[in-house]
Every structure is written in structure tokens, then in C-alpha cells.
């Protein structure tokens, strides 16, 4: 019972919103309810940190690793609900349902971080994905109905990715006769170099998580879905699924063993193509959400470098980086969301004069963008430092050099965002009046991006304990 506490609180939250969807609650009530319940979920996750055990016939493991991810995911959920103050972008009649499916998706993600058996993994993956398929078209009716396109794309790609994952699983099961990761870990390292089918099976298995992470070659959905979904929905889609994907990727990559060179090569190619494709495409975007989508593809590449090192430092840096990525991206989406009270998309032109309209917003955007660009003293810089250190320790110099060249390219478009926000405009601009509670979130994001970047040791200690539970 106590082992399953975070999941139970999320289920309770979903239940509450289910009943709320039957009634007719005001938006502000719904939001307070969501904040309260997700705060309880965060507390439950923190409380259950340090618990160890397994459930459902060893298919579901609770350990330091899963709990760290649960804390990050539930906390992310809390921020996403906090950020969506007023739900500008979501259709008025669908608000309780929006919260309901958000919660269910978070529940799926939380389960993913604990799943250690292939069927459990696929079920958690599907729970989190299906909920998102539903809420992406929840956007208020726009001129082009682009939310429908986004919804269809996300669903089609998601289903295809799941199909590929299942197909890969069938190979693996066929060759090993087990679905438990603990057993697979004993068998796969011995055969992966001898049987190419195992390699293919493993890569196909990972596809489902590449899809969640928006890593090449499963990245195609990202720009259109980011663009089509409501701003608050995007802030969820863009951040939390990636955290859970990293959790599972760490579990699955460690299956291959430390010296599976062909497997590492495949991952390297994906990482490099992802970075390069993402960054080059981001250069020409004018819609901020599309830009962030391509930037997330690039970041999936950086993350992959840490993970494919398959070393303690590599996994640690992966966890650290994805947590940082969550905050930095939320900082950008926070600004996007509050700049568009009608819930439309934001382009560079809308950023002009932001500095005069609201200095705090401009600063939040600057810190978030410079963080994503990897400029010290932000969390993005420290994360890249750790990732590159892990890669050079494995003698992957070429990979690191390609990655830093990519970082250099990326600076350009992040700088473009900041520049737009700090450009002065000639005519008078209307000031953005932020509520105190909104400003608090902005300040919180700025502080945490800089603090976690300057003093990473505390977080690293937690992550270290977590990684020790997997390898």
C-alpha cells in the first residue's frame, strides 16, 4: 500500500476530476483542486522516497531510481497545473476532462518509471499516451482546426511507435523466453554481439521511448503537435513524457551491457542526427512552439549521449539533464502561455517589447533560453558539462565535438528569442499585468535554473543513489 502511494494519490486525483466532470465547477475551483491534489501527490512521492520493494509479481519495482523519477514527474505535473492559470487555450466545456486526462497521463508516466517487465512497460506507455491523444484536440476552436491535425498525428505516430515496440518485444521474447528485465539483463549481453536479431529487437523496443523523447527517427510528430496543441497542453507534452522516457531508456539501455559496441553505434547515429536535424530546422522557425519542438529534438540528442555512455556518470548526467530540461522548458512555456491570453500561438513578433511589458517575463525567457543554450551558470551548462565528461571518459571525442558544434548552432536561435524580447519598440506597448502568484512561479523557475546549475551536488547525491539501484 505504502509502496504504491504516489500512484494511488494520482488515481484518487483522477477520480475526483472524473466526478468533477459530471458537475459544473468553476475553472478557478478546478485549478485549486488540481493544485491541492497534485501537491498531495508530490508529498506522497517524497514520502515514499527510500521505500524499496516490488509489486504485481515482480513486474513493478519501487526503488530509489523509480522514486526519484516519481518526485520529478509529480512535481512537474504540479508546475504544469500551476502554470495553466485560467486555461486560456482549452475549450470551456472540456476543462474538468482536461485535468482528468492530464492526471491519467501523469499516472501512466509514473508507472513507467517503476515498470520492470515488458508487458507492464507497454501498458504504462499506452496509459500515458492515450490520455494525451485525447487532450491534444481539446484546444479552443481556431481558424484552421490545427488541433485536430495535431491530435491525429500524435495518435497515428504514437500507435505506430507502440506497434514497433511490440514487434521488437516479440523478437526479444522469442529469443529469451522471458519478459522480465531482471532476467533479460542476464541473457542479452551474452548474445547481443552474436545475434543481430537481438540488436534489431532491442532498437525496435526502444522506438516507443524515442517517440516519447522525440528522438530521431521518431521525432516527426513534435513540431506539428507542439504547434497544434493548446499552450498549456504543449507544456505538458513537451516535458513530462521525456522524463519518464529517460527513466525507461536507462533501464533498457543497461540491458545491452557495458560493451555492446554495435548498439552504441546505432544510438550514437540517432543522437547525432537528432541534434543536427533539430538544430538546423529550429534556425528557420518563426513560431516559438515549433522552435521549441525542434529544440527538444536536439536536446533529445544531447540526452542520448549521456545515456549511451552506459556508465554511472552517463546515467547520472542524463537524469540531471532531463530534470534541468524540464525546468528550462517550463520557463519558456510559462512565458508563451502568459503572453497569449486568447491561447493563440506566439511568434517572434509577439515577443517584441516584452522587456517593457513585463521585465520578469523577459528575464524568465532569457534564463530559460540561455539555459537551453547551455550558458553558465545555468543548469543547462552544468548538465552539458556532465554529459560531455561522461562521453569523453568513454573516448567518444568525435561525438562530443559534433555535439558542441551543435551547441554553437543552437545558440543562434535561443539568442534570437532573447533578442526579440529585449528589442525596443517605437510605439507604446500595453504592460502585462501579472498576478502575484504568476510572478512567484517565474521567480521560482529563474532561481531553480540558476541554483541547481551552480550547486548540483545535492541533486547528484539523490540521482547517484537512484542510479546505484539500476546498475
Amino acid at each position, binding site marked *: 500500500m505504502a509502496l504504491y502511494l504516489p500512484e494511488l494519490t494520482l488515481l484518487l486525483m483522477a477520480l475526483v476530476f472524473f466526478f468533477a466532470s459530471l458537475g459544473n465547477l468553476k475553472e478557478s475551483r478546478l485549478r485549486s483542486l488540481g493544485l491541492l491534489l497534485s501537491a498531495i501527490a508530490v508529498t506522497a512521492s517524497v514520502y515514499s522516497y527510500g521505500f524499496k520493494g516490488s509489486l504485481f509479481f515482480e513486474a513493478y519495482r519501487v526503488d530509489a531510481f523509480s522514486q526519484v523519477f516519481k518526485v520529478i514527474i509529480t512535481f512537474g505535473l504540479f508546475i504544469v497545473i500551476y502554470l495553466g492559470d485560467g486555461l486560456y487555450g482549452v475549450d470551456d466545456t472540456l476543462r474538468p476532462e482536461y485535468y482528468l486526462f492530464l492526471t491519467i497521463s501523469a499516472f501512466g508516466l509514473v508507472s513507467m518509471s517503476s515498470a520492470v517487465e515488458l508487458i507492464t512497460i507497454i501498458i504504462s506507455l499506452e496509459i500515458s499516451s492515450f490520455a494525451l491523444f485525447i487532450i491534444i484536440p481539446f484546444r479552443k476552436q481556431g481558424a484552421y482546426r490545427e488541433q485536430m491535425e495535431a491530435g491525429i498525428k500524435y495518435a497515428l505516430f504514437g500507435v505506430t511507435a507502440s506497434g514497433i515496440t511490440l514487434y521488437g518485444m516479440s523478437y526479444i521474447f522469442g529469443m529469451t523466453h522471458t519478459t522480465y528485465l531482471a532476467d533479460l539483463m542476464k541473457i542479452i549481453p551474452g548474445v547481443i554481439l552474436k545475434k543481430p536479431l537481438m540488436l534489431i529487437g532491442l532498437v525496435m523496443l526502444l522506438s516507443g521511448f524515442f517517440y516519447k523523447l522525440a528522438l530521431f527517427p521518431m521525432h516527426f510528430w513534435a513540431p506539428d503537435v507542439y504547434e497544434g496543441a493548446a499552450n498549456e497542453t504543449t507544456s505538458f507534452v513537451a516535458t513530462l513524457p521525456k522524463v519518464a522516457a529517460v527513466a525507461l531508456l536507462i533501464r533498457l539501455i543497461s540491458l545491452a551491457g557495458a560493451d555492446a559496441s554495435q548498439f552504441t553505434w546505432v544510438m550514437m547515429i540517432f543522437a547525432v542526427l537528432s541534434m543536427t536535424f533539430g538544430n538546423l530546422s529550429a534556425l528557420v522557425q518563426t513560431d516559438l512552439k515549433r522552435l521549441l519542438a525542434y529544440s527538444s529534438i536536439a536536446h533529445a540528442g544531447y540526452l542520448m549521449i549521456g545515456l549511451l555512455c552506459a556508465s554511472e556518470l552517463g546515467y547520472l548526467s542524463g537524469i540531471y539533464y532531463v530534470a534541468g530540461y524540464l525546468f528550462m522548458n517550463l520557463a519558456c512555456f510559462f512565458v508563451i502561455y502568459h503572453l497569449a491570453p486568447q491561447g493563440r500561438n506566439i511568434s517572434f513578433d509577439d515577443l517584441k517589447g516584452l522587456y517593457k511589458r513585463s521585465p520578469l517575463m523577459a528575464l524568465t525567457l532569457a534564463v530559460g533560453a540561455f539555459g537551453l543554450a547551455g550558458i553558465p551558470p545555468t543548469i543547462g551548462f552544468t548538465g552539458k558539462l556532465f554529459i560531455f*565528461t561522461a562521453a569523453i571518459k568513454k573516448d567518444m*571525442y568525435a561525438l562530443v565535438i559534433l555535439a*558542441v558544434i551543435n551547441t554553437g548552432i543552437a545558440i543562434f536561435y535561443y539568442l534570437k528569442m532573447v*533578442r526579440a524580447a529585449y528589442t525596443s519598440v517605437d510605439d507604446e506597448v500595453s504592460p502585462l499585468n501579472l498576478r502575484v502568484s504568476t510572478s512567484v512561479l517565474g521567480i521560482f523557475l529563474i532561481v531553480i535554473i540558476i541554483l541547481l546549475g551552480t550547486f548540483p*551536488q545535492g541533486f*547528484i547525491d539523490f540521482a547517484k543513489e537512484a542510479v546505484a539501484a539500476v546498475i
Partner: protein
Amino acid sequence: MEQYLIYNTLSYPILTVLVTVPLFGAIITLAIRGDRNLKIWGLLVTLLTAVLSLPLYSSFDLTTAKYQFAEFSTWIPFVNIDYVLGVDGISVLLVLLTTLVMPLCILCSWTYIKERFKEFICVLLLMEAAMIGVFVSLNTVLFFIFWEAMLVPMYLIIAVWGGPRKDYASIKFFLYTLIGSIFLFVAIIALYVTTGTFFIPELMTHHYSFSYQMWIFWAFTLAFAIKIPMWPLHTWLPAAHVEAPTAGSVILASILLKMGGYGFLRFCLPMAPGATAYCMPYLIAVSIISIIFGGYLALGQNDIKRLIAYSSVGHMGFVTLGIFLLNDAGIKGAILQMINHGITTGALFICVGIIYERTHSREISDNSALGIMMPIYVTFLVIFSLSSLAFPGTNSFVGEFLVLMSSFSKYKIVGGLAVIGAILAAAYMLRLVQKMVWADSDGHIHHGEKSHLSDLNFRETATLAFLAIFVFWIGLHPAPFLKVMDASTAHLLQQLESGMNVLPAGHGEPHALLNGVGESIKHLLALK
């Protein structure tokens, strides 16, 4: 640690204080209202920093090459990153230059900056903290953090308070410097993975293989050559200088450019001595090109700021030339030349700012014949111009003389070519002075458009007079400044000597190809 550091014995942790006073000053700035209060606050913080930094000079131990006033505490134990600060004879003068120039930056912006004063003071103070941090860090990661942290405030200074083409200039500045430093970043990590430490003095003691040295040497050199800047990577500099507000130009010229030279001395020479010795001919050749090219382009400029910007390229060429001559006089001359350039060119940019405030133009032709209207101003202008062309008795003479002397003693042709640069400097500076002071003036004030020009007020006079003191002090009595460098330069040369003998043996074809080019450059320069 003890073999490298002498811990701070002053009553306060001086280096940490120097970094944190401007940092906290910047944060407190956000709570202050009223332009006048903000200016006074900015001046107070920078003056306080300057006063607090003085013990660095008075208590400096001249006899040792160890890092003094050091502080140490662990920071991120998991990858062995420590918080280590310290200064030696190479960095101490640069720290003092920074702390002393910053109050002048506030003073020269007193009326120049018209809007967003709060943010201006804030970024200026952040900039000061980061710049001092770069010079005092003894940990490569800490160094890199401060190095990159300078970028954002400097970018904002140009992008927000700059001239008409500020967008172009600021983004060019940012991208150039950043792309240079990403390879620096890789080199820092590679060094850590090889040696297990980020601690700079310890990194200097390791011996690396020749090809490894070549890689890190060029990774470092790219970053520093962009920053200093060397031909052909200098193109960001004129744009940034012309568009930046006065204080921005002064910071760029006086301090930011010095970081390139400092980086060469701190990283390239001691950590990759073999590669340094091997690459010396190329870098000397590039330095000579910078000197002549910068001087030649300065001759053709009509914009005063642009002229001084190109002259900076030439002057910094002397610095890199001095560094890569790899002997005592050359390196000392280079360090002194960095300080001199900071004083002289900073002062010249302040002069340009002063006249721009009055005539709203930086064209030489719009600012001609000022001698009769602004006698005090032109006195300073002539002093600093003479200093810039290294007139005997001024500060630059000493530095340039040391560099030229050591280049003549080592390679005559190099010395001969560098002298051309010095002559060009005289040509463009005298042309500037002639036009701005006299031009076609007949010695009377006519009732024309310029009769309203007022001479310097007390604030402006004090700013320039302070710098003029140093022009003559270093010019007439440079010994106290050179003494500071003695021990550290000797130590650096010793590190070079012991490491230089790593023979470029056992490396592949590409190096052999380079070798051929190196030989022919040596022939060209008639090197030994």
C-alpha cells in the same frame, strides 16, 4: 595544494570579496529607484571594489611565483570541481586594471546613458564580477563559467544601449565569442578526463604527448585568438566597438580583449609547451599580419571609434607577438602592453564618448578644429593619442619597446616588420589629432554651429586625469609594474623550457605537412 598556493592572510577573503561585492551590488541595484541614486550607487560599489582591491598591490609578495591570496573550498566533489581563487604576477595587474577602470565606466556613462539606468548599472556590475572572476579563477570550470557569464551582460550592453546597428553588432559579438569558447570547453573536459583534475596549477605540471598538446593548444588558441582578437578573427571587434555605448567600448577595449592574452599565458604556454614551441612561427606570422593589417585599416577610417577599434587590433598584435617570442622581455612587454592598452585605449574611447555627447557624431570631419573651443579636452586627446602611438615618456613606449627589443634580439625581420606597425600607428593617430584639434582652424571662434561646444566639466576631467596619471607613471617609472611580473614570468619560462623538449616525433602525416609550412615561414622570417 600547498605547493601551488599561498593562502590569503588578509583580514578578509579578498578575491571572493572582489567577485561578490559587484555581484550583490548588482542585485541590490534592482531595488533602488531614481536615476541619480542609481548612478551614485553604481559609483559607490565600483569604488568600494577598487579600494578593497588595493591590498593586492601593496601586500603582493614579489619573490614567489605561487598563487597568492588564495582561497579554497570544495564545490562539486562528485566531479572534483573546487572553488579555488588566487592571483600571481600575471593576473594581479589585470585584476587591478579591472577594478580601477570600472568606476570610470560609471562616470563616463553619467549623462551618456539616457534610458533604463537601473538595468545598465546592474549589467555593468555583473560584468565586473564576471571579469574579476575570470582573472582570479584557478579552476578551469570556474574560469569557464565566468568566461561565459561575461557574454550575456556584454551582449545586453551592446544590444540594449548600442547605436543604430546594435542588433548586428551584438549578435556577431555573441556568436563569435561563443563559438570560440565551445572548443575551450571540450579542451577543459578532455584535460580533466586525462588528469582527473580541473585545478589549473596542477594541470600545468602534467606532461602530455605532443599530438594531445596540439589538440588542446588549438582548442584554447581558437577561443583566445577570437577574444584578443587576432587577424583573421577580428571582424567582430570594429562592429562591437562602434555600436557599443562608451562604457561598453571601454570595457571591451580595456578588459575583455586582455582575456585573450591572459588565456594564452595561463593555458597555452604552460599546459602545451611543446605545441607552443612548434606553432610559434605561425602565431608570430599572424601577429605581424594583425599589427600591419590593423594599422593599415585604421589609416582609412573616417569614424573615430572605428579607427581606434582597428588600432586595437594592431596593438593586440604586439601583445601576441610578445607572448609568442617566448622570452622574458617579450612576455613582460606583452603583459605591460595589455595594461597600457587598457589605460590608453580606454581613455581614447572615453574621449570619443565625450565628443559624441556634444556633437552627436563620430565622424572625424564633424569633429574637426576643436582646439580653440575645448582646450582641456584636446590636451587629454593629444596625451592619449601620443601614448597610443608609443611616444617615449608614455606608457605604451615601455611595453612596445620591450616587445620590439626582444623581437630584434631574436628574429630581426620580425622586429623590422613590427616597426612598420609602429610607424603606421604614428601615421593614423597623428592624422586623427591633426584633424580633430587643428584642421583648417584660423585660431578664432566663429559664430557657427560649433560655438556652443563646452569644454570638459569636472567629472570628465577627473576621469581622464586619473588615466593620464598612469600614462606617465608607467611611462617614466615602469619598474614597480615590471617587478610584479618578475617571479611569475621566470616561472612560466621555466615551465616552457622543461616542456618544450617534447619532440614532435611519432605523429602522422598532417603534422609533417604542417612542419613543411612551418619551415618555410621560418625561412621567410629568416628565423634561426
